[in-house]
């Protein structure tokens, strides 16, 4: 079954937004069609468009109800979806390398993961850093990437008692998901490491480091010294993030 580009289902989200759904499940192809369609509408930039929030399998479109009637909006979206160029070139992607120090004081839940998975710390690091993770969406908190593709071997439930504040840069896992907390927020995921890289910086344009459709790869750092060196370079604006164009 070709999961991508199935007909959108459009639902009301109040008087100033609509929910557009392109498929019921988390799937890279559906997600690709979400970002293709969202980019297409943003390029058209109709006057009534306020903002699109793309997510895993659909998007929320905020619009100005003074600018377009709901019925016309719905017809417009269906028509654009039919007529837009449906690129099938979903083969290349930007791979962003995130240097990460696993375990120790930066990975307070590494022990939990070791106990739960019966794997060694070294195995966990090697499995977690071997995958290229697809960025399905940005949301929850500023710059937080929803990543897909965590190995089943690392599947560990959330903490029973969520932390009230997770340090910025924390790399964490929960069930089949992994992610990086860009800013200090509450959260219940198992923290296994930390990156010195800033995923979100309001002073930067754009403020986010990764975009939906990008891939992320974690690169294990050998020591706290290495972590601190990168951290200092970032402070002095002398660090450049490694990115490559890759075939998926």
């Amino acid at each position, binding site marked *: 079954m070709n999961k991508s580009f199935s007909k959108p289902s459009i639902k009301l989200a109040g008087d100033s937004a609509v929910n557009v759904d392109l498929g019921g499940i988390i799937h890279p192809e559906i997600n690709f069609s979400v970002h293709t369609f969202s980019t297409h509408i943003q390029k058209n930039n109709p006057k009534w468009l306020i903002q699109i929030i793309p997510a895993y399998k659909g998007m929320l479109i905020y619009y100005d109800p003074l600018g377009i009637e709901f019925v016309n909006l719905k017809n417009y979206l269906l028509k654009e979806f039919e007529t837009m160029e449906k690129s099938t070139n979903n083969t290349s992607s930007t791979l962003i390398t995130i240097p990460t120090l696993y375990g120790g004081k930066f990975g307070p839940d590494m022990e939990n993961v070791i106990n739960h998975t019966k794997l060694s710390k070294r195995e966990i690091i090697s499995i977690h850093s071997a995958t290229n993770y697809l960025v399905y*969406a940005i949301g929850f908190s*500023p710059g937080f990437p929803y990543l897909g593709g965590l190995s089943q071997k690392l599947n560990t439930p959330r903490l029973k008692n969520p932390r009230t504040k997770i340090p910025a840069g924390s790399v964490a896992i929960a069930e089949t998901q992994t992610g990086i907390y860009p800013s200090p927020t509450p959260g219940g995921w198992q923290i296994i490491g930390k990156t010195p890289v800033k995923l979100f910086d309001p002073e930067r344009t754009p403020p986010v480091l990764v975009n939906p459709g990008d891939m992320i790869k974690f690169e294990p750092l050998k020591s706290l010294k290495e972590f601190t060196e990168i951290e200092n370079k970032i402070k002095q604006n002398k660090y450049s993030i490694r990115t490559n164009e890759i075939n998926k």
Partner: protein
Amino acid sequence: MKSINKKSSISIIDPGIFSTIQDLGRYKYQKFGVPTSGALDQSAFTIGNLILGNDTNNPGIETTMIGPKIKFNSSEWICVTGAKSNPKINDSEIKMWTPVYVKRNSILSFGQNTWGVRSYILFKNTFNFEKTMDSYSTNTNLNIGGHNNGFQLLANDKISFLEKNDKLPPFTNNFDIKKHYIKEQDSYTLRIILGPHDDFFDSNNIKKFLESEYEISTQSNRIGFRLSGEPIKHKSKSDIISEGGALGSIQIPGDGQPIILLQDRGTTGGYPKIATISTIDIPKLAQSNPGQKIRFKKIEIEDAISIYRANNQILKNINNFETKDINIQIDNNNNKIKTYENIKLNHQKSFEVNSEYKKKKYTLKIKLS
């Protein structure tokens, strides 16, 4: 000559319970996971700016329960709107919903609210600090925006204005609180449009949702209002794959107690949303105290849109009539005021203006100093 007064500022003597700088919000950054923030009662906020003749997005201060005590280091035009908060300049009560001229060294303070929760202090002038991601709005959970790295107002804060602003607010307006603002008697009924996930609930549960009374819980803030009352049961799943949540969406988590998402909500979330509150009824919530009981009334999208449009038109009419810039000149020798066309008032420095507003009539007392 235009005077640039570097001391054009306010100092916070006492911040009140929780006061933040807000504008209408930050809309272009939600795709990066940044909440919109912005005034919770956009109606009171917008009206205040219209009364002052401002751009409706000119930043102001949102107060909560008890407002701040503010010293004015320069003379400024302000307008206080929203909750009935009994504002005073020094020891004299001032009117809300009208431009008030606050003289240098005066102190603005507030009494107990006699209705509502949030007041807005709008200024003819504009704050002199950099916007964060195109907005002045403060999000204290994420420490984004505002005058001080995303913090609320704190004692001893000093907030500067862009310039000594000699511009006058419009001398008259069509504002009528009965026509333009929340009517107290229907402030507990919130109009909703079902969806986007009403299909997660059977008709009995939707009926229960529409017919029950819900109490606003104490765990309510700018992110969202938690309600307590009849629990709403999901047909099966109580979670969805994370997706964007609109302003005013009412999500039903596993325990069945509704949560209404407001301006500081995270951009995405994973609970099904049974309905969404019509935009123009959000201010009713912003002005509701914990413990207040509310009800939902289902309306169709066509009705919601016509209400929205009508409201927008009504607001536009607040200062939509034929006026010209007030052009006056003061004849120092004869102690007289002359009016001329095309002479801008902001060239005049040495006078004080008191104005009284009464529909379209006004009296202007000008005292030469």
